[in-house]
């Protein structure tokens, strides 16, 4: 199995509080992605990174920021969590031009 871990796996937080999810990889892959999964919407891309300090927005980036200060870590931050951000968040990684995508196990976030 690919070395990709997400933390925390489960979190309940209050509206208006900041939340950071971490994706850590041991594969030295260039690309890292954050998705949210909601019923009826599949997996929607929030942000992705194509290198250290190189990031770009996905289709649902509003309310989220990311950072990648080193190859192995990609952080997703909700600056002020809202109930609409209650979701399951997945991290994925891939080598550049690679045909293999590895997924984390998901982070369940509930905003109350």
């Amino acid at each position: 199995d690919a070395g990709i871990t997400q933390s925390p796996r489960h979190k309940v937080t209050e509206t208006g509080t900041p939340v950071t999810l971490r994706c850590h990889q041991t594969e030295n892959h260039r690309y890292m992605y954050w998705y949210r999964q909601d019923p009826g919407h599949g997996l929607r891309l929030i942000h992705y990174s194509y290198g250290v300090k190189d990031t770009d927005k996905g289709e649902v980036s509003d309310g989220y920021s990311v950072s990648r200060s080193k190859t192995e870590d990609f952080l997703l931050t909700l600056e002020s969590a809202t109930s609409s951000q209650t979701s399951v968040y997945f991290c994925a990684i891939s080598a550049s031009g690679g045909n293999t995508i590895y997924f984390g196990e998901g982070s369940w976030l509930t905003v109350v």
Partner: protein
Amino acid sequence: AQTVTQSQPEMSVQEAETVTLSCTYDTSESDYYLFWYKQPPSRQMILVIRQEAYKQQNATENRFSVNFQKAAKSFSLKISDSQLGDAAMYFCAYRASTQGGSEKLVFGKGTKLTVNP
């Protein structure tokens, strides 16, 4: 922008029968990968099959095969001899393979497959 469309939110099949899940995509790239992922209730993402766009031969993995029509931008998944364990959400996904280019990984909304005994 690349998009992936799965037009069947739900499908059902009888055990031992064959079912086909549809997927279409839109891209201006010439080199890319297409994937089918299975997601059981555990939410784990499991790769079922992948296809490189430059390969004309359709990919197969045991009971799973695809019908890749590049000109039509269609990538359907056929499951033969369906088993109860095949019941899951199935996602079609696209990724450009141009190194250094935009290598977004884009998913469809999924098809929920039910297998009836």
